[in-house]
């Protein structure tokens, strides 16, 4: 774990994508389903998952999408990125979703579909 952006402990099944995510537009803010065909996780739901993706892109209003997902009980339990960006960081901070940044090696080693726990206190990701 190279950097803690938002503290907390959470578990979930990993949903991993190698595409940067534009939360405004790509994600249905009510259901958490990816609605943009360009993504390799199209039609999958990010609800209750540990969402693993490179970083956020696009509109600054994407932070509201993350907050809306949480209000609608459709948010990921935690987010793991390779690079932190302001939109995802601020959205997670307000929505209280643990968010960490990891190295490329760690990012590559996280496997889609695995159950993992993120704990910022012990600074560990464990299976």
């Amino acid at each position: 774990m190279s950097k803690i952006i938002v503290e907390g402990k959470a578990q979930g099944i990993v949903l991993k994508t190698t595409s940067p995510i534009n939360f405004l537009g790509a994600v249905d803010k009510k259901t958490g389903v990816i609605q943009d065909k360009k993504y390799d996780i199209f039609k999958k739901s990010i609800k209750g998952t540990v969402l693993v993706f490179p970083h956020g892109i696009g509109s600054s209003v994407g932070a509201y999408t993350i907050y809306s997902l949480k209000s609608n009980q459709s948010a990921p339990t935690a987010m793991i990125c390779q690079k932190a960006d302001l939109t995802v960081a601020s959205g997670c901070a307000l929505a209280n979703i643990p968010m960490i940044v990891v190295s490329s090696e760690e990012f590559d080693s996280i496997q889609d579909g695995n159950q993992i726990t993120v704990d910022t206190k012990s600074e560990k990701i464990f299976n």
Partner: protein
Amino acid sequence: MELTAEEKAALNGEHGKTLQTAYRILVATGEATNAEKLVPIKWAHLSGVNYNTIGDSGEQFLRELSKDARVKVKATVNPMGIDFDHISDFYHIDDEFVQKQASIRDSYIRMGVEPTFSCTPYEIFDLPEKNTQVSFAESNAAIFANSLGGLKTNKESAFSALASAITGKSPYSDLRKENVTTPMTIRMKMDNPNELDFGMLGFFAGKVGDTSVNISGVSKPNRRSCKALCGGMGTSGTCAKFQFVDNEDEKSEKVDFGKEEMNEVFDELNTAEKGDIITLGSPQLGLEELSDLSKMLKGKSFEKRCMVFCSRAVQKQARSLDYINEIERAGGEILSDCCTCLTPLIDTNETDAVTTNSIKGAYYLKNSTGVDVNLKPLSKIIEDETK
């Protein structure tokens, strides 16, 4: 990140829940941008105003927050979804939208913002002196401020700019420092570019660049082209600053923007041969652009609906200078407080495709509104769509 005793106390909730939330956001964004401390800012520009994008959760959040949150510095706000003066012209807009949008507008006003409802605050207010720290969430405005206005801002998020407005502070991250390193130079290879070409250059640069890029091969573009460049760049990536350079830095990576690269952007965003309606303004048009438009429209009339977006403040000035009369005479519909991007004013039941000269507009029309886009520079729009 190092916080002062006062900031720590606020983060721990000693000054109430609103400030605690604001500082939580600043700490997270500070960590995300490798900032070592918070610095004072003079002006915050907020996004997250359109009900179409922030939805019910956003509306409730702002209603709750505005009970006690007040902005501490000058704060301006982005466009809403609609123009309240023209609701009756758009029969498909439902009452719920109007009501929720009014609630969001009122929440911001309660917090003490200037009711600009504009993505181009730089067209309304004089910019403060060079190197002033500001906090702009609207991406085209942040890029304009950093690259052409000599100001310092991150490409803020809706919440980080809101937290800055409430606290008067922002993380001291790389873009706010004196010398930002620009490891990449984009070489503009197209001759005599128009504003559409500049929009595509920006969109390309935003995709390949990281936080800041150099652009070579460009000589003094006009304001319309500069705004198109800022708009395009802000749409596609995380890049928040550009600088025009005459000589290429030997150490920087070089990337060419030529015919092939331009065609790639064009093919991604241009999906129709012609549009059912025309939209002008994303970013919203400024006084100079409205003046140009009114001159171009002399003796001509649009053959289809043409929505022209500008801020209310600019509309009032332009009206007194008679620019608006000429545009309205030609059939243009002047709309304020909203913009091409993400407005529900475009009725998708009646509109399959939109003609525009805006790359930023095209991206959102295609990906969010869900209509096809026909891209043309303004000169070609006037040529093809008026008589």
